[in-house]
């Protein structure tokens, strides 16, 4: 597959495509020590996960608002642009520095793919103004598709049972009935 629009071929694959060389999911944590390591990992990965989720939403909003806009937000709105890159850098660094137990290798690998995808999308948005015609362009459509893939990847490794979701339920309008989540002993992530 040839490169298109600056995206590496791997970025164009769907989450369940066999061309992606994801580590195999392993069985549940097993021992108490392994369980503890897994819970520690989940606790420490949560900020990066939420950052990536917010970035996806933000980037989708940029693409949604850009047709017809006379400027590229990433070039003219330095504060927003710099914030987005800062958030992505922090998330990337957090993931890089995490101690990853065996039970979480697949989970961690997926998150790293998500950061790389968002990196490429933001890079493309920063390379020049998104087309400002009233109709979306091929570039726009490709970026949208890649963003959807990134979101699907992120959602595929959501762990609702411990509140690791792309959507923050804890403050949702129905959260008054919220039950505190727990990780099942045999949770497979």
């Amino acid at each position, binding site marked *: 597959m040839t490169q298109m629009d600056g995206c590496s071929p791997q970025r164009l694959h769907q989450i369940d495509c066999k061309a992606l060389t994801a580590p195999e999911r392993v069985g549940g944590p097993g021992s108490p020590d392994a369980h503890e390591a897994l819970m520690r990992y989940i606790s420490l990965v949560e900020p990066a996960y*939420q950052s990536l989720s917010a*970035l996806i939403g*933000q980037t989708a909003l940029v693409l*949604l608002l850009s047709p017809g806009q006379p400027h590229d937000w990433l070039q003219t709105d330095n504060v927003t642009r710099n914030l987005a890159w800062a958030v992505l850098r922090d998330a990337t660094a957090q993931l890089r520095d995490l101690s990853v137990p065996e039970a979480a290798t697949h989970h961690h690998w997926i998150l790293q793919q998500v950061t790389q995808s968002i990196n490429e999308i933001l890079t493309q948005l920063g390379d020049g103004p998104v087309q400002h015609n009233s109709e979306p362009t091929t570039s726009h459509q490709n970026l949208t598709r890649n963003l959807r893939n990134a979101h699907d990847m992120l959602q595929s490794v959501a762990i*609702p049972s411990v509140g690791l979701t792309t959507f923050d339920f804890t403050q949702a309008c129905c959260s008054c009935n919220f*039950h505190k*989540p727990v990780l099942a002993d045999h949770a497979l992530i």
Partner: protein
Amino acid sequence: MADYSIHVLEYARTLNYPKAGLVYGAFDEEPVTMPYCYVLLRGHGHVALVDVGYSHKGHGQHLAEKYNIVNWRSPRVVLAECGIRPEDVDTVFVTHAHFDHFGNVEDFPNATFYIQREEVERWHSTLSLPDRMRWMTASLDPASILNALELSMTGRMKLIEGALEDVIPGIDLHLARDSHTYGSMWVSVRNDGTEASKDVWILAGDLVNQFDNIERDGSLIDVETMYNPGAQTVGSFTNIILAIEEMMKLVDYDSRRIIPVHEGRLFDRFPSRTSKEGLQIAEVVLADTMSSIVD
């Protein structure tokens, strides 16, 4: 003469919901059953919805388990009670971008969606704020934004700027800036088709959750009733109150004509029935050309 039929369709509910979540200050009152609904409008050759609910795909099942949301049914099942398929819906008015109003976009392949541009733009800046401010993005699902983006790729997402009249005949859109959300929208239906209509119905989104938001006992201040906003807002309570006043002016202060979608007593106030799925359907008004679906 009524141009549109208006039906409120329950698609899920949550039990024992704290009243104070829907009516600010109602801390000592009994919990309520809170329905989740969307509103079906039919007339002038259009089949329109005000909001689309949320889907049980993705997070939906988790919601059900964690928040005591019960009896969720898909739009296909819910709309079938009115003899409508999701494919028949040609227009959707999205009052705001919360997940339970804007989550089920993909189920309506032939609809054009309308949302306030300001609603979308302001979420963009809010999402970039630090985690300690995450409260402000409560109820906003990034997947909803992605859905909106994908709709825009096919020209089916219209970003509205402020008020708009006759989006479809007799139906107007209104912006309530910085209220329940940054760009909440409410819908008015001029059901006699006239410009200075005397037959207006308001679909309030979450600007009005319950009757108590408009008809709260005001005896403490020697008025019969007073406005009392809902508890959840990222804007201001003042703007919610002002939006309610704007709605009430349009309906000549007949509060019955303002329709909340999280109010279980709605189904006592209007002719209603319970579907075979155990969900409620309220018939707010019937167009001249249509037969009742609740009798």
